[in-house]
């Protein structure tokens, strides 16, 4: 029985014998006697096994070494996931077991570390977004969008249409569709202007009919274009009691107004790009859900909220999870959402990151990205390659490349050969691919020049 000893198992043979004795049984098996014999699994499980820690490490590292990373290949990929630098100080905090190995702070008195940090996350996000309240995180931007759509419908009562911009990320749209399955929502697309790439204001207002509960746009939108014309839409929405939901690129908010500044009701997005973590192949992300404060609205908000409260010691306030009665563990089928486990640690990671960056840091990283993107655009124009849209942009734009479907793979390989991840392909006509190109602040002039050179060569 001594082979019970394993670093992950607390009890050795002696412990087990002692406990069995106290329980008055002779084997652990007796504790499984209530499981009908016929369903007991009797085969041999095929499960990998690496008996020493070092072998586990080698095995996993060997696997991962088969990947190519953005440390080797210059990445022009974005679309909701940004290549960022994680300061060493941030990583050291994330490595603290007190943070990562704690549970949801159900006992606030012994969990002030988590609660205090999450309150700071909420607070910093509110400042970035110019909103009043932000929850402790959603899974990601896409699911936050699904929740937002459901929430507008829930609040509106008896209105079931949700408008969304055509300049939306395709993956978010897919999740949105999956998420409204249960709520009877009709999704209607608002077209964008094919010259500017911005949402079509007139159409949007036209579409805001009686049945519309909410309208969603992205800023900058999926094509990288800044939506600077949405004021009339927001005004029309207010008039018609349509809730306005904005999905914003949080990394742009050093340079671009927070959605609260242009008066949206709900702001969503993903905080990976402001320190939630490295890209990690797209997960975990850090979904953001933020609102104007309104007691009624807040009571309908999905996800967890940390609030301030009093302690027995006069003058000493503290933090606690609040409005828990919205949540599934109390409200069950009448909960505002099914979310339970969220992305708390990556939210804390954002707090650490923003505390390190400060206002100057968020502005400087924004500037670097802005300079990079605009330099790239200018250089591409010099070789006759243009953006698809003429709207102003921040750190990304869609490059008019029109790679035919059957050349797409070749193009990818060509660019890879130059150590470049070329951007995200997007087909406007279903036949040819343009590329959404994002410049993170980790790219430098040489990388941008190499990109332009590669495109130039490709076109020869």
């Amino acid at each position, binding site marked *: 029985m001594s082979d019970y000893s394993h670093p992950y198992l607390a009890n050795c043979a002696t412990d087990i014998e002692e406990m069995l004795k106290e329980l008055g049984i002779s084997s652990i098996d007796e504790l499984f006697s209530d499981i009908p014999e016929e369903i007991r699994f009797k085969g041999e499980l095929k499960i990998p096994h690496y008996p020493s820690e070092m072998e586990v490490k080698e095995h996993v590292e060997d696997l991962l070494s088969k*990947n190519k990373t953005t440390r080797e*290949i210059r990445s022009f990929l974005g679309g909701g996931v940004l290549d960022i630098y994680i300061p060493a100080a941030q990583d050291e905090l994330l490595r603290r077991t*007190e943070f990562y190995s704690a549970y949801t*702070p159900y006992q606030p008195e012994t969990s002030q570390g988590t609660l205090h940090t999450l309150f700071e996350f909420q607070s910093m996000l509110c400042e970035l977004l110019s909103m009043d309240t932000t929850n402790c995180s959603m899974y990601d931007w896409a699911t936050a969008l699904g929740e937002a759509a459901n929430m507008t419908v829930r609040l509106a009562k008896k209105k079931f249409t949700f408008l969304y911009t055509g300049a939306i990320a395709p993956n978010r749209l897919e999740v949105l569709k999956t998420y409204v*399955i249960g709520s009877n929502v009709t999704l209607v697309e608002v077209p964008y202007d094919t010259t500017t790439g911005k949402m079509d204001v007139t159409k949007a207002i036209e579409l805001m009919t009686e049945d519309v509960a909410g309208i969603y746009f992205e800023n900058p939108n999926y094509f990288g274009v800044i939506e600077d014309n949405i004021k009339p839409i927001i005004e029309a929405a207010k008039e018609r009691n349509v809730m306005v939901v904005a999905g914003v690129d949080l990394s742009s908010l050093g340079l671009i107004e927070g959605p609260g500044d242009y008066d949206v009701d709900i702001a969503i997005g993903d905080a990976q790009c402001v320190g939630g973590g490295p890209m*990690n192949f797209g997960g975990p992300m850090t979904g953001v859900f933020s609102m104007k404060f309104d007691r009624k609205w807040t009571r309908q908000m999905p996800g967890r909220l940390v609030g301030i409260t009093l302690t027995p010691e006069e003058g*000493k*306030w503290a933090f606690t999870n609040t409005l828990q009665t919205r949540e599934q563990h109390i409200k069950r089928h009448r909960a505002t959402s099914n979310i339970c486990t969220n992305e708390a640690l990556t939210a804390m990671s954002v707090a650490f990151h923003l505390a390190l960056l400060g206002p100057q840091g968020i502005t400087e990283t924004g500037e670097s990205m802005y300079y*990079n993107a605009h330099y790239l655009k200018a250089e591409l124009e010099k070789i006759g390659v243009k953006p698809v849209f003429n709207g102003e942009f921040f750190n990304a734009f869609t490059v008019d490349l029109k790679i035919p479907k059957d050349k797409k793979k070749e193009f*990818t390989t060509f660019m890879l050969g130059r150590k470049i991840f070329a951007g995200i392909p997007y087909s406007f006509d279903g036949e040819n691919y343009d590329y959404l190109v994002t410049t993170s602040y980790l790219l430098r002039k040489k990388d941008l020049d190499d990109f332009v050179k590669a495109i130039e060569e490709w076109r020869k």
Partner: protein
Amino acid sequence: MYRQAIYDEPLIYDLGKKGRRAHLPLKTDVSPIDINIPESMKRKEAPELPELHEGEVMRHYLHLAQMNYCVDSGIYPLGSCTMKYNPKINEALARAEGLAYTHPYQPVETIQGTLEMMYELQKALTELAGLPYCSLQPPAGAAGEYTGLGLIRAYHQDKGDFDRDEIVTPDSSHGTNPASTVMNGYKIIEIKSNENGQVDLDALRAAVSEKTAGFMITNPNTLGIFESDICEIAEIVHESGGLLYYDGANFNAIIGIIRPGEMGFDVLHYNLHKTFSTPHGGGGPGAGPVCCSERLKEFLPVPTVEYEEEKDFYYLNYDLPKTIGKVHGYYGNTGIALRGYAYICALGAKGLIHTSEQAVLVANYVMRKVEAIDGLRLRFNRNLPRKHECVIDASPLKHQIGVGAMDIAKMLISRGKHAPTVLFPLIVHEALMIEPTENENKESIDQFVQVLKEEIDKARDNPDYAHDAPYWTSVGRVDDSWAVKNLILSYKMIKNLKTKGEWPPKWPEDHH
């Protein structure tokens, strides 16, 4: 003697000073140009973020960290939460550059390692579930439920059956079960547990019908009791035409012992952050992979991770015409999947089975010790062994001296032992739901029981001692209702209060 650290740590906004820097980011070497963002969208003032230097940031969060209980602080027997040890090698591996610096949209030939890992993890999960297909996309257990229920819907609709709009579930189920059900547009039919704490077969028979889309069950259930009628249950549900959903959150009790697929289940979700040791992170992230049977396979979320053996090539398959769509922006929480995979590799089949065996052993051990304490009792059939957890009822104590489960919890945290889950499941009034996990050894459990006894004794001497607990935590018992009444949820709201002269908060006269 135990005392949690205490620091009078201000909000970070009350630290620092304008102009301090804690991090200098890389600046591009491209020449600056004018920022041409249209005036209406140009940020007028930089966002108000903290301004500290690096050392100040570290001190702030070090202080906060030390005011936080965690798995490495001591026993964390939250029932239903499976707070197991988070192996350190997993944390190290999850930081590998080969994972961290990969983008979800990079060419598939440049991400073969991760895809292989995902594929191998899927294989292991399907092997343990006895269900042949898997998606790692759901980012948490509840998302797994949402996905699984979506598969069930798609299945029925694909067969042209649009009338099945009910999901049946026991009243002891986890809150996410009904919540996911309703979010999925189903009606929820809750059935009462029988006197053994198990599904009442008659009630089940009465509940199912041609409207039944599926039945959701957690097994072992939230009481830690194995649903031994599981085969009959499956039969009843299948006969009605419904499908069977296995909430695998409690899988830690049954790894390698039973395989739900073999009992007729169609779909199952795991919580990697429970059974497979990935950290809870103060609330997340987790991962809720879903396994399913042949007949549900074609509805899985896209993309699926697949392998072409001939070319030794892994790829993402978007070509599932009947897919339910996507439940996460990308492929789920890959960083968590990696940790789960490493955990499986470290234990192998035998180790995983031992895990369940030890988890069950210690749960029964703690149960017998705790139910022997005067004022506490084991609810439901005392003769049934429990699996990974047990639910103790503190109502007798409440009746005796007015000290309930929550008071017990506060007394325990006073002593540096985390409390069990309290007041859940709702079907037990003063529930203390205890799940030690295989990470607790005999001494640890003996100590826990000893402390529990001592504290209850103190409460008997003086019930107010219990009501005023906790004592040695960084703050005393917080006032949850004040928080709800006042809803102060951000620094922005504090600034508003300040301008109104309402900050800091005043203590009400009658405040205890």
